[in-house]
C-alpha cells in the first residue's frame, strides 16, 4: 500500500465536508492558556548539511574519554556481528510485531531470549523484556503486591542500596496505587543492607527488594536476606546485573527457596552506552507467579501437523483483552534491544559470558590495588564486589571528577549526589574493556590531581 500524503485539495474537501474553515479550528477546544505559543528556546531550522556538521563537531568535542564509571550502565565489548545481524531487515523492528504469529523468526528469537534469561537467573519463566531496569523493578513491585497471597500488604521493603534512580522511578510509578516503599538503611562499614534495620517483628510486607550486586557494587548476603523475607511471608524481588550472574549464584538459588521475581537492566548484554537509552529491562519469576507477570510471553507449541511453532501466550492477562484489569499497561517489548542481547548471549555462550565477567572482576581488583596505593585514597566499604566499588577521596570528589574529565577520563560516579552522607566518595568500575595501561593512566592522572 503506497503512502500518499493529503494534498491541499484533499484537505479542503475534508474540511468542507465537516463544515470547518481551517485545520487550526479543529484545535479550538483546547483553551488558549494551555497552548504553546511556539518553541522559543529551539533555534530556527538548519539544513541537513548544517546539522551534520554541528553534530560532527559536537561528537569530536566529547573526545574519546576513558570510562571508569558504571552506576547502572556498563561499557562492554560488543562483537561486530551483534549489530550487523540485529539491523538486518528481518529483525529490524522496535517492538513485538503485529500479527505476531506471522513472524515466526522473531518469535523464535524472543523464545530463545526468554530461555536464556530464565537460565541466567535460575528461574522457571521469563518474559520477552520490558523497557529498562528501573521500570522493570516498578513492574516487579506491582507484581509482588498482586501476587503475594500470604500478605495483603501494600508495603515494600526498599533498601537504600538499590540504585537511587530506580527507587525514584518505582516511587513515581507506584505512589498513586497506595504502595508504600519503606527504606532500609545500609551498613556504613560494609555498604550492604543493614540487618538491624530490617523490621524486628514479623511485619506485614508484600516483598523485600534485594539488589545484587547492589548500587555500591558490593555483594549482599542474599541467602540470609531471602530466607528472612520468606520467614516473614514477604516475596523476594532480586534486582541483578545479568553479567554478574555468569559468576554469582543465580537468584533462583538464593536461600532455601530462591527469589520469587527477578528483574534488572539488560544493557550489559550487547547494548552500547548511550544517554537516554534505549536499553531494556528483563524479568523472570517462579512458574507459580506466571499469571501475575506483566508483558509479553512467547510460548513454544506445535501446529496441526505436529511441527514446532511459536505463539504469544497468556494474553488474557494483557491490556488488549483484560482492559483496566490487565497486569500492566505494557503491551509490547523492547524488541530490537532484546534481539541484540539474544545474539550477544548466543555468540558469547556460557563460557564467553563467564570469561567477560571474570575479566571484569580481575580488572576491578587491579584498579582497586592501584587506586588504594595512592596517598589518601581508600576503599569506602569492605565487602566483596563484582566489578564496581566505592572509594573515598581525600577531598572534593566532584571537583576531582571534573579535573579528570578535563583530561578525558570519566573517573566514576559522585556518590554524594545521591547519598549526601558520603562526601568525597566515588563509585568506580573497570570492565573487560580496560587494559592495564588504561588503569595505569587513570591512576597516574588521579595521583597528580590529589597530591
Amino acid at each position, binding site marked *: 500500500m503506497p503512502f500518499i500524503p493529503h494534498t491541499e485539495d484533499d484537505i479542503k474537501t475534508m474540511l468542507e465536508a465537516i463544515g470547518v474553515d481551517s485545520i487550526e479550528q479543529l484545535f479550538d477546544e483546547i483553551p488558549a492558556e494551555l497552548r504553546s505559543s511556539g518553541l522559543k528556546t529551539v533555534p530556527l531550522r538548519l539544513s541537513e548539511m548544517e546539522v551534520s556538521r554541528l553534530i560532527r563537531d559536537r561528537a569530536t568535542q566529547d573526545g574519546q574519554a576513558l570510562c571508569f564509571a558504571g552506576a547502572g550502565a556498563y561499557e562492554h565489548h560488543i562483537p561486530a556481528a551483534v549489530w550487523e545481524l540485529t539491523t538486518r531487515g528481518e529483525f529490524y523492528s522496535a517492538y513485538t510485531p503485529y500479527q505476531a504469529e506471522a513472524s515466526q523468526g522473531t518469535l523464535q528469537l524472543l523464545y530463545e531470549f526468554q530461555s536464556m534469561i530464565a537460565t541466567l537467573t535460575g528461574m522457571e519463566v521469563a518474559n520477552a523484556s520490558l523497557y529498562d531496569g528501573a521500570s522493570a523493578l516498578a513492574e516487579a513491585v506491582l507484581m509482588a503486591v498482586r501476587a503475594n497471597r500470604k500478605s495483603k500488604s501494600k508495603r515494600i521493603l526498599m533498601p537504600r542500596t538499590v540504585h537511587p534512580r530506580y527507587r525514584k522511578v518505582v516511587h513515581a510509578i507506584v505512589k498513586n496505587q497506595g504502595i508504600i516503599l519503606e527504606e532500609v538503611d545500609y551498613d556504613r562499614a560494609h555498604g550492604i543492607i543493614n540487618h538491624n534495620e530490617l523490621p524486628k517483628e514479623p511485619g506485614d510486607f508484600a516483598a523485600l527488594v534485594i539488589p545484587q550486586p547492589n548500587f555500591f557494587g558490593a555483594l549482599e548476603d542474599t541467602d540470609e536476606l531471602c530466607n528472612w523475607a520468606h520467614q516473614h511471608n514477604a516475596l523476594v524481588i532480586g534486582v541483578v546485573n545479568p553479567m554478574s550472574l555468569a559468576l554469582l549464584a543465580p537468584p533462583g538459588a538464593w536461600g532455601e527457596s530462591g527469589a520469587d521475581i527477578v528483574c534488572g537492566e539488560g544493557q550489559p548484554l550487547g547494548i552500547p552506552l548511550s544517554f537516554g537509552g534505549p536499553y531494556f529491562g528483563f524479568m523472570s519469576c517462579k512458574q507459580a507467579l506466571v*499469571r501475575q507477570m506483566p508483558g509479553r510471553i512467547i510460548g513454544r507449541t506445535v501446529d496441526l501437523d505436529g511441527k514446532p511453532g511459536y505463539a504469544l501466550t497468556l494474553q*488474557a*492477562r494483557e491490556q488488549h*483483552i483484560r482492559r483496566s*484489569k490487565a497486569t500492566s499497561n505494557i503491551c509490547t517489548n523492547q524488541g530490537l534491544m532484546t534481539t541484540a542481547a539474544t545474539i550477544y548471549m548466543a555468540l558469547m555462550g556460557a563460557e564467553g559470558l563467564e570469561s567477560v565477567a571474570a575479566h571484569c572482576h580481575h580488572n576491578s581488583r587491579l584498579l582497586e590495588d592501584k587506586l588504594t596505593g595512592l596517598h589518601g585514597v581508600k576503599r569506602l566499604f569492605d565487602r566483596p564486589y563484582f566489578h564496581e566499588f566505592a572509594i573515598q577521596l581525600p577531598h572534593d570528589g566532584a571537583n576531582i571528577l571534573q579535573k579528570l574529565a578535563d583530561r578525558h577520563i570519566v573517573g566514576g560516579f559522585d556518590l554524594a549526589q545521591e547519598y549526601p552522607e558520603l562526601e568525597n566518595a566515588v563509585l568506580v568500575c573497570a570492565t573487560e574493556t580496560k587494559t592495564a595501561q588504561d588503569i595505569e593512566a587513570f591512576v597516574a592522572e588521579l595521583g597528580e590531581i590529589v597530591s
Partner: protein
Amino acid sequence: MSQIPEDLKYTKTHEWVRRESDNTITVGITDHAQNLLGDMVFIETPEVGTNYGEGDDCAVVESVKAASDVYCPITGEITAVNESLADAPEMVNKDPYGDGWLFKLQPEDIEHLEELLDAEAYGELAASEEH
C-alpha cells in the same frame, strides 16, 4: 439453550448460588457464562478465611478468550475453595453446577439470598443477552 437449574439463585453477573443445609452457600459460574467464555485454562480461587463484600471481585476465571472476574454474591467469609480446579479448570465447562463449583462462603446474613435472581428471572436475563 443453557441449563438453569430451578433450585439455585443467580446474580446479574452470572454467578450461581446454592444454599447448603448448614446455611453456607456454594458459588460457581453459570452454564450460560461458561458457554460465552469458552474453554477454561486457569481458575484463580480466593484464599480461605478472607472476607468479601457483596459485589467484590474474589476470583478470576481465565478462558482461551478472556480473564474475567467472579463477583461475591453475598457479603461473607470464604470457608472452602475447589482445589481440584488447579489441575482441572475444564470442570467449570463440563459441570458448572457440580464439580465445577468455585468456592463456599459463610454469609453474614443468609437472608440476603432472597434478593438474588431466581431461575426464571436469570433465564430472561441470559436470553436477553443472547440477542
